């Protein structure tokens, strides 16, 4: 799922709640206030090809859920301006056991970075910016 709204991890977690999954892995990717060449990151602007990104997110979640056998995967990528300290990517995986949940969570994040057409631009405290 692609969203322009802040990601509420407790909402994602609540949506995944059930009494069959012995493991729930929660991952939140957060914008870091990195310093580059004396400039500090204040926000990341995420641009996105919505139609394709939504499709790719759905496809990769389906593929990983089928291949891994985990119970559920919920993944949300925020787009637009995301301030340092805010969440840009939220993933919640439920599974019978922790190994499968950890592995599926890691794979979801890796595949999003490789497949989903989203671009980020670091915006610095001096007003300059850089596409990554």
């Amino acid at each position, binding site marked *: 799922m692609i969203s322009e709204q802040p990601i509420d991890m407790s909402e994602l977690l609540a949506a995944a709640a059930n009494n069959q999954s012995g493991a729930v892995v929660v991952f939140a990717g957060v914008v870091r206030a990195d310093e580059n060449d004396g400039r500090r990151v204040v926000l990341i602007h995420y*641009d996105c*090809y919505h139609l*394709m990104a939504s499709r790719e997110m759905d496809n990769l979640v389906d593929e990983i859920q089928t291949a891994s056998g985990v119970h559920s995967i919920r993944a949300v*990528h925020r787009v637009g301006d995301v301030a340092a300290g805010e969440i840009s990517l939220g993933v919640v995986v439920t599974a019978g056991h922790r190994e499968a949940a950890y592995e599926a969570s890691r794979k979801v994040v890796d595949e*999003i*970075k490789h497949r989903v057409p*989203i671009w*980020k631009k670091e915006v610095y405290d001096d007003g300059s910016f850089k*596409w990554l």
Partner: protein
Amino acid sequence: MKITVLYFAQLKEAFGSDRDLLDVPAGATVDDVVASLRDRTEWSAVSSLPLRYAVNERIVDAGTKLGDGDRLALLTPISGG
């Protein structure tokens, strides 16, 4: 035939727009369209960026023939997460 070319990130900024509606000859390929864009002065700002292409949200190669109404997206290296 008419196609829509979609721009994102650096390309959107360089062209000052997220899309162009182009009239191209029947049988035109992705490469033909990209070659015509390279003639624009704005292209110099993004000429060093590697590109991939998607037609109607599916990744294709540069030799792919376009059809009327297609959406051709020019994709610079992605960086989500």
